[in-house]
């Protein structure tokens, strides 16, 4: 642990030797209860305000989007589906003509669109509809008013949050080049969090921090051999690889969840920018102290409680680290759809030794383990939550952890509260 971190009044459990760096991982395959990468569109279309996401897929894709997102969509969404039908399956040239027609129809309806993503789905992948060529072709026709990019959000290639990874990776080749030393924060964050981070970086002494994705497609960050980037989300493997292909370097850090994670995350940048420790301390102290105090008021509701994670967003390991170290919860099983050992190296170090880790999913087996363990709280997808509640378990919808601002100091207590609330509810209803 760094000197900077030790000086901040964070209450954390002592780190066990080695943590989970070399821990065995239970790898399973079978039925997965997780959304496909298309669903990343639900937050990406709110984040990039002049982009439109056109899924090239089946009726199932359209139905998924409205069923999964219907709860939170209250305006006309900036996404839609070009539903493939029988005629498109007859021949490829036909499907390309059809796609051009649909895009023309869409862009005439929505002239405000500056960036159009063609999003591949399971059926478009299986019939090998070449969306990258379609994007090039359409990009030529609509340039310079509209840029056209493509990525795959298909369920045969991606799970839930990997859709964001694929989308951001698609943006990377188009980022302007630079040789100037610069810092880039990678991963969609709520605007309010982004602004907090910007202010903190400024206080630390790092100006001109750039964010990927940008709020508008015209404000793309620049990248080059002197770009250092911090991942704000743990599911960005392809984006990281693409950035490194442009010469950028990843700053090794845990993810900015909880006081400890947030401090270490900022510290990674401060160290690279040779910020004096006193200045760093002074910059983060008010927020870190505030967050620690707020957490200390929630800790008694969570300390000693046993938590079980079904795999959903790849946020599970950083969340488990935060809950175990700052809130003293006990980890029964931490499932993740995919475990990126490199990006999660510091997180794994900080997990309590002996934590049961699982990757992939065989949902029936995992449900058996969960029932046998009878945890105090279960984090799971929307398909499992009510059935588990009916079995007497307390649950937290995993999806809320993706849609709610949870990163940074000011949100640390909100994040803890997300786990405390279901337990409080159960206690109230039982009384």
């Amino acid at each position, binding site marked *: 642990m760094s000197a900077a971190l030790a000086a901040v009044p964070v209450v954390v459990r002592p780190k066990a030797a080695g943590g989970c760096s070399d821990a065995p991982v239970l790898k399973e*395959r079978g*039925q*997965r209860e*997780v*959304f*496909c990468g298309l669903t990343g569109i639900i937050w990406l279309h709110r984040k990039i305000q002049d982009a439109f996401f056109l899924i090239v897929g*089946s*009726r*199932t894709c*359209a*139905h*998924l989007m*409205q*069923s*999964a997102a*219907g*709860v939170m969509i*209250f305006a*006309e*969404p900036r996404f*839609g*589906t*070009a*539903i*493939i*039908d*029988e005629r498109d399956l007859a021949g490829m040239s036909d*499907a390309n003509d*059809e*796609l051009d*027609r*649909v895009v023309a129809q869409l862009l005439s309806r929505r002239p405000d669109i500056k960036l159009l993503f063609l999003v591949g789905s*399971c*059926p478009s*992948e*299986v*019939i090998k509809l070449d969306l990258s060529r379609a994007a090039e072709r359409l990009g030529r026709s609509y340039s310079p008013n509209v840029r056209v990019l493509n990525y795959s959000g*298909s*369920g*045969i*290639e991606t*799970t839930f949050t990997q859709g964001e990874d694929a989308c951001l990776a698609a943006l990377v080749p188009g980022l302007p080049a630079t040789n100037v030393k610069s810092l880039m924060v990678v991963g969609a964050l709520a605007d*309010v969090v982004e*602004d907090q981070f910007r202010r903190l970086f400024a206080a630390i002494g790092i100006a001109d921090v750039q964010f990927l994705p940008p709020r508008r497609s015209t404000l793309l960050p620049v990248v080059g051999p002197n770009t250092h980037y911090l991942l704000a989300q743990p599911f960005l493997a392809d984006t990281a690889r693409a950035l490194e292909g442009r010469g950028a370097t990843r700053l090794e850090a845990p993810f900015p969840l909880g006081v400890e994670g947030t401090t270490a995350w900022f510290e990674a940048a401060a160290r690279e920018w040779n910020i004096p420790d006193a200045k760093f301390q002074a910059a983060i102290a008010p927020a870190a102290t*505030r967050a620690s105090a*707020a957490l200390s*008021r929630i800790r008694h509701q969570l300390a000693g409680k046993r938590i079980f994670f079904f795999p959903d967003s790849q946020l599970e390991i950083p969340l488990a680290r935060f809950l175990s170290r700052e809130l003293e919860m006990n980890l029964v099983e931490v499932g993740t759809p995919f475990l990126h050992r490199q990006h999660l190296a510091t997180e794994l170090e900080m997990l309590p030794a002996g934590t049961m880790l699982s990757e992939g999913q065989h949902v*029936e087996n995992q449900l058996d383990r969960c029932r046998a363990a009878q945890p105090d709280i279960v984090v799971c*997808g*929307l*398909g*499992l*939550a*009510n*059935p588990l509640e*009916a079995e007497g378990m307390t649950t937290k919808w995993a999806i809320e952890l993706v849609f709610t601002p949870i990163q940074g100091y*000011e949100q640390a*207590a*909100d994040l803890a*509260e997300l786990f405390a609330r279901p337990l409080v509810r159960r206690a109230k209803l039982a009384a």
Partner: protein
Amino acid sequence: MQLTVWTYEGPPHVGAMRIATAMRDVHYVLHAPQGDTYADLLFTMIERRQKRPPVTYTTFQARDLGSDTAQLFQDAARDAYERFKPKAMLVGASCTAELIQDDPGGLSDALELPIPVVTLELPSYQKKENWGAAETFYQIVRKLAGPKAPPPGTKPAPRDPARRARCNLLGPTALGFRHRDDLKEISGLLAQIGVDINVIAPFDASPDDITRLGDADFNIVLYPEIAMPAAGWLQRTFGQPMVKTVPIGMGATCDFIREVAALAGVDASALLDDPNSRAPWYAKSVDSTYLTGKRVFVFGDATHAIAAARIATRELGFTVVGLGTYSRELAREVREAAKLYGVEAMITEDYLEVEAAITELNVELLLGTQMERHIAKRLGVPCAVISAPVHVQDYPARYSPQMGFEGANVIFDTWVHPLMMGLEEHLLGMFREDFEFHAEAAPSHLGGAASERRAAPAAAPIADAFALAVETDDDVDVIEAEGPIDPVWSPEGEKELGKIPFFVRGKARRNTEAYAREFGVRVITVEALYDAKAHFSR
């Protein structure tokens, strides 16, 4: 390809899931990629069922393509049989698996499971959810009831007059629009007129129940979109006549009772003479003067849309200015109904087209689906939901049927509530000058965004007027001296507050101001905002 933002129906395998989930002791093995498991949440979150749907997905991935997807299917089917021990199994493919052509039927035959296995061929790129549900139900009925079929051409034996007539109730499914409550209502009606129920299917029916369908004297088709193919087959195979009138609304319920009574050979006149329903009297009362001639637009599945148009016109005195459906299978029926009201039926799956029509027609009430609810919100038009697709709020905890006499009562309330009623409109007229009762005010029971939006322009001049009054008022000093010193928002603080989601922003503002007052903070900066947030975060 078709450009769509919303879609009225899911894919056909979701229809099959609605049948499997409605039944007992049935399991559906669906060849599908991992994302297709989203469909579970329709049942567990939107309908709030306590159990997961009885569906096993094979969850194939890109790396499996071309190698062992067929093996994956067989393993999944065998494991599902071992784990769930169903009495019948459905096998099929979702849209992506259809493209890889693994033949779930043949693969499951090779497993030689000791239970009936129904193979579903649901062409995803041509057909949709209701068709999928109807086809699935039909295939199950054929497979399970078929072995008991009499030789073709056999005349059904006349019913022993000492035995009460018995019928099957066909069509209710999981995720149906009030199906559970409709069943209770219709079961009660049948009991009142002295008709027994042989089997209700697919809702809560086991495979054994399906084998007994042939024992009924006639069938009642409650939901034609789902039950018609099965009922047609039962009619041809077992000689069972069917009741086709759907009992939604007073008039249709009475017609339904007459039709059932005729087939069952019973006298239902006592019930018809005294249906004990409030809806007809409420519709006649003087307060309902204001309903007369309201311009309504009706869109939904064919069954509910046809019923809604009839109720709107004949039972409430509305004017139907538009009638349409997304159910292409029943387009003819909807076209015929539209003729009765002098409008042209709209048959489309394109919600943008529906939106354009509604905008054009200057509608006063929208009776539609969840999609029309979105349209209505945008246009500021009152709306009631009459048909699937629906959302979680359309699965109410209370008893809320659409069918039968109680259904007519429920419909009266649901449709009339979004409108301004006579008494309310009258009082608004009387208090026209009062600032709370200005002309743009929405009905008092309709809180939320719609009324706020309409009230907003009117509120601004009032606020201005108030500000003016304070400036010239001699009591200003007194007011200030009495109250606590109000903190002031810094521009940055106010801007930061604006970034908080609107639905918690009010609370955040109140909390921050309370915190500022308590701790003597005069100017609320960004820092103070977060100090307050931390203070209250528990």
